[in-house]
C-alpha cells in the first residue's frame, strides 16, 4: 500500500505537468481547429530558452551580476547543514533572480515564436483544408528540432528548479512517502495555471471570443470578433504555458532534445481525453500519469514510454472521440 501510494503521488505529479502541456494543444485546437503536432518541440524550445537565460547568460562575463547575494545569505549558507531543508531553501533563494529572469524570458521568447508561426505559417492557410495546416505543424517538427541543434549544440544539461527542492518525508498509513519539494510546487503551479486559464476562457471576453471562433469562424467574424487575433492569442497562450511546462520538465529531467518526443505522448493524452474538452483532457492526463507510475512500478521503466500510446489506442477503439470529446456530426 505504501509503495502504491508513493507511485500514485509520483503519477499525479507528472500528470499535472501533462495537463499543463495538453492545455496548449487543446487551446490551439479549440480556437483554430488545428492539432499542433509540433507542440512538444515548441516546449523544447521554451526549455532551452529557460536554460539560456537562467544558466548560460548569467554565466557570461559581460552579463550584469544577477546574484546580489546579501551578506546574511552567505553566512546562513555557510552555516547550513549539507542536504538539509534549510540548505535547499537557501540554494533556491540564491538562484531566485536567475530563475525569475530565465522564466520570464522563456515565456516572452516562446510567445514570440508562436506569434511568428501563427502569422507566417498558419494565417496564410486560413480557410484551407485542415490537413494542410496539420501537415505544416508536422513540417515544423523538423524545422524546430533542426533549429535547436543549430543554436544549442551542447548535450543534456541541468537547470535550476523553479521552487526550493528539499526532500519531504511523510508517514501515511504507517508507510513512508517521499516527495521532492520542487515537484510538489510544480504540480501546484501546473494545476493553478490550468484552472486559471479554464476559468479565464469561461469568463473573460477574450475567452468568450475564442469559444465563439471555435464554434463557427465566419459567424464569429461577422459578429465583430477579430478571428486572426483569437488565433494569435491561442498560439501565444499555448506557447506561454508550454514554456512554463518546459522549464519544469527541464529542471526535472534535464534539458535535452527528448523533450520534443514528450509532446507526442501528450498528444496521445489529448486525443484520449477528447480534443475539445478541458475536463476530459485533465482526467486523462492524471490517469496516464498514474498509469505510467504503475507501469514503472510493475513492469519496469522501459514500459513508461509506450503507456500513453497503448492507453490512447484502447480509448479510441471504444470511444472514437475521446473520453469527453464532442462527437463530430458529418453531413453528406
Amino acid at each position, binding site marked *: 500500500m505504501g509503495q502504491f501510494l508513493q507511485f500514485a503521488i509520483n503519477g499525479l505529479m507528472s500528470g499535472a505537468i501533462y495537463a499543463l502541456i495538453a492545455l496548449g494543444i487543446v487551446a490551439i485546437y479549440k480556437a483554430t481547429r488545428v*492539432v499542433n503536432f509540433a507542440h512538444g518541440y515548441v516546449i523544447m524550445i521554451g526549455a532551452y530558452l529557460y536554460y539560456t537565460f537562467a544558466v548560460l547568460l548569467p554565466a557570461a562575463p559581460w552579463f550584469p551580476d544577477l546574484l546580489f547575494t546579501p551578506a546574511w545569505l552567505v553566512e546562513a549558507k555557510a552555516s547550513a547543514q549539507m542536504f538539509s531543508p534549510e540548505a535547499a531553501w537557501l540554494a533556491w533563494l540564491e538562484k531566485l533572480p536567475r530563475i525569475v529572469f530565465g522564466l520570464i524570458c522563456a515565456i516572452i521568447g516562446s510567445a514570440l515564436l508562436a506569434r511568428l508561426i501563427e502569422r507566417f505559417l498558419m494565417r496564410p492557410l486560413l480557410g*484551407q483544408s485542415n490537413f494542410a495546416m496539420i501537415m505544416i505543424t508536422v513540417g515544423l517538427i523538423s*524545422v524546430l528540432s533542426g533549429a535547436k541543434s543549430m543554436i544549442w549544440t551542447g548535450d543534456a544539461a541541468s537547470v535550476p528548479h523553479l521552487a526550493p527542492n528539499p526532500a519531504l518525508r511523510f508517514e501515511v498509513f504507517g508507510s513512508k512517502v517521499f516527495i521532492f519539494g520542487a515537484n510538489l510546487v510544480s504540480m501546484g503551479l501546473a494545476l493553478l495555471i490550468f484552472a486559471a486559464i479554464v476559468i479565464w476562457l469561461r469568463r473573460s471576453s477574450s475567452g468568450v471570443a475564442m469559444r465563439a471562433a471555435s464554434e463557427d469562424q465566419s459567424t464569429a467574424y461577422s459578429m465583430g470578433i477579430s478571428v486572426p487575433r483569437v488565433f494569435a492569442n491561442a498560439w501565444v497562450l499555448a506557447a506561454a504555458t508550454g514554456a512554463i511546462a518546459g522549464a519544469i520538465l527541464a529542471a526535472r529531467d534535464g534539458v535535452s532534445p527528448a523533450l520534443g518526443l514528450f509532446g*507526442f505522448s501528450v498528444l496521445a493524452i489529448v*486525443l484520449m481525453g477528447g480534443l475539445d474538452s478541458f475536463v476530459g483532457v485533465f482526467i486523462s492526463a492524471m490517469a496516464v500519469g498514474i498509469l505510467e507510475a504503475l507501469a514503472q512500478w510493475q513492469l519496469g521503466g522501459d514500459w513508461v514510454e509506450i503507456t500513453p500510446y497503448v492507453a490512447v489506442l484502447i480509448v479510441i477503439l471504444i470511444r472514437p*472521440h475521446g473520453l469527453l470529446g464532442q462527437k463530430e456530426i458529418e453531413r453528406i
Partner: protein
Amino acid sequence: MINGNLKATYAADEKIADNRYKVSFIWGLAALAALLPIFANDYIILVACQVGIMVIAVVGLNVLTGYTGLMSLGHAAFVAIGAYGVTLLHHAATALSISDGLQPFLTIPGAMALAAVIGLIVGLPSLRVKGVYLAVATLSANFIIIFLIELDAFAPWTGGKTGLTTVDPSIFGWVLDTQREVFVLIAVMAFATVLLVQNLFRTRVGRAFIAIRERDYSAEILGISLFHYKLTSFAISAACCGLAGALMAYFYARVLPEQFELLLSLQLVAALIVGGMGRTMGPVFGVLVIVLSPELLKVVLSAIAGDSIEAAQFRAPLQEIIFGLLIIGFIMFEPLGMTQISDRVFRALNRWPFARG
C-alpha cells in the same frame, strides 16, 4: 506535326502513358536505371538504392493516404516489420533446410504478408476514426511496434537495441552480396511496384479506394463496404512497405530499430506531400527530392566551407531544417506537389508551339 492528345481508338485512350512525352520519359528512366549498375560509381549506386527503397515504401503510403484518404504517421513500423521479418524468415528457412537459391521467393512474400497482417491490425482503428485521430493512432502503433522490437523479451530474435545482422539473398544461386547487385533487385521491384499500383487504380478495388477518399459515407451508401476496403487498403499499403523493408534488409548489412522510428515515418509522408498525393509519379518525384536534397546540401556545403568540422557539425541540423521547409513550402506554394509541376511541363511540351502552361 501532330500536337495535343490525338486519340483514334479506345485502346489508345486507356493507355497509362497517353502521350509520347510520357512514354519517352518512362523509357528514359528505365534506361537510366538499367545503365546505372554498369557505369555508375559506388556512391551513385548507394543513393540510387536509397531512392528505390523509399519509392516502394512511399508508393505503399500513397495507396493509403493518397488514394484512400486515410492519414498515417506510422508507416515506418511496416518497413521495420518487413526488414526484421525477411531476416527472421531466412533464418527459419535455413533451419528447415530450404535451398538458399529458393529462399527469397518464400521470404519476400512472407515478409510482405506479415507486414500486411500487422497492417490489418493497425488499420482497425480506421474503421472508427479518421483524420487526426487516425494519424495519432498510427503514430502510437509505430512507437509500440518499435518498442516491442527493442524489448528484452524478444531480443533473442530481434537483437533488441543492437539490431540484427541481415543475410545476403541468393536468387537461384546468384548471391547478391554487393550493393550493385542488390540495386538490380531494388530497381526491378520498384518499377514493378509503381506499375502494379498504377494498375490497381484501374480496377474495381482501386476505384473503391478513391470513392472512400472522396466521401466515405457516400461510398458506403453506394454499396462499398468500408470495413472491407479500408482494411484492404491498409494491407496493400503495409505489404508495399514490407517489401521496402525486406529490400532494406538486403541492402544494409545490419538493421537497427532506430532506423524505423518517427523520422522515417515523417520522411515517407514528406516525400508523398512533396511529390503529390494520389498520383502515380508523386512518390517517385517526392523521393527524388527528399533523398537528393541532403546530398545536394553536402556538395554545396563542402564547396562553400570546405571540409571544416564546423560545416560538418552544421550539416545535420541544416538538413533537418531544409527537410521541414520542403514540407511547409510545398504545402503553402504547390499543394499538389511535384506532379503538378511536371504536368505543367508535359502539357506545355505537348501543345508546343500553340500554347504554353
